[in-house]
């Protein structure tokens, strides 16, 4: 319930949207689907700028990237044939964990990235796939997802299958023989927000990825984690899961099939 809302705008071009969002002294918020914004008691918002008509709902293959417009719904993404193959299905698996289908029908990729706690697995999967958000001022307008020769692995634990994860780990790996040429790791539940683990990644580059090495990496992730303590699990349990799920994600990534 918006207590102060007095204006609703649906601009047709980006510059108009940015102008509206930049007005000083007015509490203005961008509306990108609205599944999280509309409903709860809101005493502050005075103006909403709906991004629905900016032409940002698209998924376009472009060279070796997939360009995903910020207003693309999570359902669009899950149904898209190219997106379905990204990361061996990792991207859409993560998108499928971002709320029930009736919400995914309107929830957008841009909103999920702007508020990663709402769809943390999608945010983390995009990090592992090295996706880059394109920004215009305060707005994310597009996400470029590289289509590259990596194999992916992911693992999660949640209180129920449809719950947000206690911990989830996403890995993208490129192997040359036994040697790891590239690895990206992203995790949910090991820090306040989903994030990459660059130090750990750097350690693995150019080294063999044996089961033993993976176990060691998993241990390092657990040691480096500074996990929260909340309704979905204690810090102690999350540290344990960091080890188990990193190992599972890396094994799957190492042994998986290239996309």
């Amino acid at each position, binding site marked *: 319930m*918006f207590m102060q809302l007095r204006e609703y705008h649906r601009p047709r071009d980006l510059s108009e949207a940015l102008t509206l969002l930049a007005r000083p002294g007015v509490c203005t918020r961008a509306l990108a689907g*609205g599944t999280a914004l509309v409903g*709860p008691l809101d*005493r502050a918002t005075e103006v909403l700028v709906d991004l629905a008509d900016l032409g940002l709902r698209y998924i376009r293959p472009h060279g070796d990237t997939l360009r995903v417009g910020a207003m693309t719904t999570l359902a669009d993404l899950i149904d898209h044939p190219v997106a379905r193959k990204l990361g061996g299905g990792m991207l859409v698996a993560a998108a499928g964990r971002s709320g029930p289908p*009736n919400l995914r029908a309107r929830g957008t990729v841009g909103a999920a990235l702007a508020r990663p706690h709402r769809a943390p697995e999608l945010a983390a999967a995009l990090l592992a796939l090295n996706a880059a958000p394109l920004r215009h001022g305060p707005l994310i307008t597009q996400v470029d997802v590289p289509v590259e020769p990596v194999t992916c692995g992911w693992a999660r634990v949640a*209180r129920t*299958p449809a719950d947000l994860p*206690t911990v989830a780990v996403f890995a993208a790996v490129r192997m040359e023989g036994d040697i790891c040429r590239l690895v990206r790791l992203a995790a949910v539940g090991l820090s306040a927000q989903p994030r990459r683990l660059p130090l750990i990644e750097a350690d693995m580059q150019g080294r063999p990825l044996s089961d033993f090495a993976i176990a060691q990496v998993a241990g390092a992730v657990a040691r480096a984690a500074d996990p929260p303590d909340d*309704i979905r699990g204690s810090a102690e*349990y999350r540290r344990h899961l960091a080890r188990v799920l990193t190992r599972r994600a890396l094994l799957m990534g190492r042994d998986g099939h290239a996309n």
Partner: protein
Amino acid sequence: MQIELTINGKTQSFQAQPNQTLLQLLRQAGYFSVKHGCDTGECGACTVLLNGVPTTSCNLLAVQANGADIMTVEALGTAENLHPLQQRMADNGAVQCGYCTPALLLTAKALLDRNPLPTEAEVREAMSGVICRCTGYARPVEAILQKDNPPPITNALSVVGQPVRKIDAVKLATGRAAFVDDIDLRGLLHARLLLSPHAHALIKKIDASRARALPGVHAVLTYEDIPRVSFTTAGQSWPEPSPLDSRSLDSKVRFVGDRVAAVAAETPEIAQQALDLIHVDYELLPAVFHPKEALAEGAPVIHDEPDCTGIGGYDPGRNLAAMVEATIGDIDRGLAEADVVIDRTYRVPQVQQTPLETHICITYLDEDSRLVVRSSTQVPFHVRRIIAPVLGLRPGQIRVIKPRIGGGFGVKQEIIVEDICGHLTLRTGRPVKLELSREEEFAASRSRHPQIIRMRTGVKRDGTLTANEMTLIANTGAYGSHALTVQSNTGSKAMGLYRCPNIHFRADVAYTNLPPAGAFRGYGGPQGYFALESQMDEVAKALGMDPLAFRLKNCLRAGDDNPIARALGEGREGIPQTIRSCGLPECAAWGKEAIGWGVHKGVGVAFAMHGSAIPGLDMGAATIKLNDDGTFNLLIGATDLGTGGDTVLAQMAAETLGCTVEDIIVYAADTDLTPFDTGAYASSTTYISGGAVVKAAADVAQQIKSVAAEMLETTPEFLTLHDSGVHTPKGSSVTLADVALRSLHAANQRQIAAVASHMSHDSPPPFAATFAAVAVDQETGVVTVEKLVMAVDAGQIVNPVTARGQVEGGMAQALGYALSEEMLFDGQGRMLNPSFRDYRVPLAHEMPPMEVHLVHTDDPFGPYGVKALAEIPMDGVAPAVANAVAAATGARVTAIPLTPERVWRALSHKEA
């Protein structure tokens, strides 16, 4: 803003406020099939098809939908011309309370339009955006997949035992205006409550002057504005066994979410603004949340007011809301005689009922200035009697009407909206609506009592029980609603299941500064059975016995007494109970096959026994009258919660009167027009209200026969009623319509009608055996329930479709209790997870395959041999799953829910 929407094929213009949701707009425009359930889109009850796609409408602004094509269930089909999906949902028992039915129908339609032959997994995935708390999703999934109905019960009866379509199924499947909020009232005001942000505080000063001055505000009430009358919200028979410790508004708050003030205003937004303008000075008091700390010396006293009273060891000065104790034999001697003594402590959580329709009521003054309360309640007659003194009225000045309600599960036995809504109507003279938000429903309504349960069990080497003791500490939160009776029931249900010469039960129920507990389907049973049935596995394990064989050796059988039930009345003296029928061996035999007992690892079992109404207390009445055309009005005080009570009562009337269910016009739960009934709780409707219906019907049948005897020139004894007529042995007959016309218009004129009441001193227990098969990820603790099987002996089943649906729905709720549901609080007593996002109830694609078997027994007490069915499905699932986890891993988890972390801790021997 001017917007244009095409709703159900018709393009219309609307003047929408920027902050108006599509849900609000649609309901204001009369599309009542679209329901409010949670405000965040997570329950899915407000789902519409937006350009053909199922989408929630509570978190979508109407202006966002400008130009869209919207479909609601109103356009799917009509009662005369049902859409095939509506037909199947209605026929297949997929419609229980009906609150989520429109959303399920639209979701299914969109799926089938896209994919005409979906797999079960695809159906469940599509449905996972709509929470159903009644059905456990089994009937809806089968309806969508076009599976066959369960078969009728084979018996000598013609209507009882038949899978008759629920009499309200069509109106619910077509989205007809049937619920509390589905009416338009001129001048309706919107109420909102100011709730306490503190767990324990005195209101030193409260200034509502700015709120009162706000344009559009019609009333602001604080404790200073209404008389102080102590009552209990528990909604029980007079005199109430729960302490009288609540007031509509008080100068002290006792939990985060306790009422501080109430506002009635022109719009919900103005009401909210008014709440923001109320200034309250609190004097914070030390708060206590753990029941053991609350009962300790020197703890803050939560009810230090002089005007609270109670029974059952009530000692508010020690925060003791109730104490119950009963002993059979000598527990110390029994423990001394044992070869093995098992001593374990179990913990069960506080959980919420989460009906999809939150608490809602609308109050108004009728043309005679009587207060009409249109409420989503399980207990209309208790509401009338209990709120009358609170409002300064006599019960006769109040009329309570219960329309269709969107689930109850016990939480709507609680009177937590009617009193304050009534105050606001009396103050303003206007109709007032009060509807709790989902967050308020979670954190400020009622819940299941959490308990810490210690069990000591003594057993001989041969498996004979010598001693069984349960001592528990329960947490009733800030108010003692059902404190005595829920905990009594823990003992009288669980501790009676196994034959044992020496039994001891004791429950201490503590007040704390957490949200109050209260009635929740199962009513103490699920708590007790988790402890008892976990314990029985531990005992069997210690003896090296098969847990199923151990149970069958010790469980009650027909002919046994249940002495603990006599020792523990529900706040009154108990009544001797002898078991006349017990289908446990058959339940066990069927379940053993269905689950693969002894074949698979990771399989667990739990037995359960419940009751059929509160003996010597619950009472129902029914009136039946014959109409000109041979139809009957059946007027009952019984309160159908959506599970099919009205339907099974109509079936029992039709059976007795020799007509069809279509000839029975049911009108129920209106304190002006229907006779008294204690209400829908304690598994009483079929057994008690059914008894009244059968008596009234038998009386009417006699009257019909005497008129027919005049017409057929014979004597009544020779006549039988069937096929809507009265028949002689020789084959001549008259129709019921002939009888009605004669008696109303022609000869010896009178209204053929009867009213009858029923109560019972016997509460014949239904029995059940629940089996679970699980897989456990031993590294992470994740438990996957792979199959759930329940065999129930509920005597004669009146309607196999509604019965099955009720069992499946209970199993799903019980699975939530087993695996994921738990109210969590921070150190200040604030609930951390008051949303469906954070409080996880099972969704369609999270449910395991379920099998249900109804074991037939003949019980001499109930009408047509019925026993109760409503609550027993809640009892066995959690212990069966915990026992399966123990069988799979060797680790005993002594607390639920069995979250991955809790199981991991048990597996790695860490502190919980």
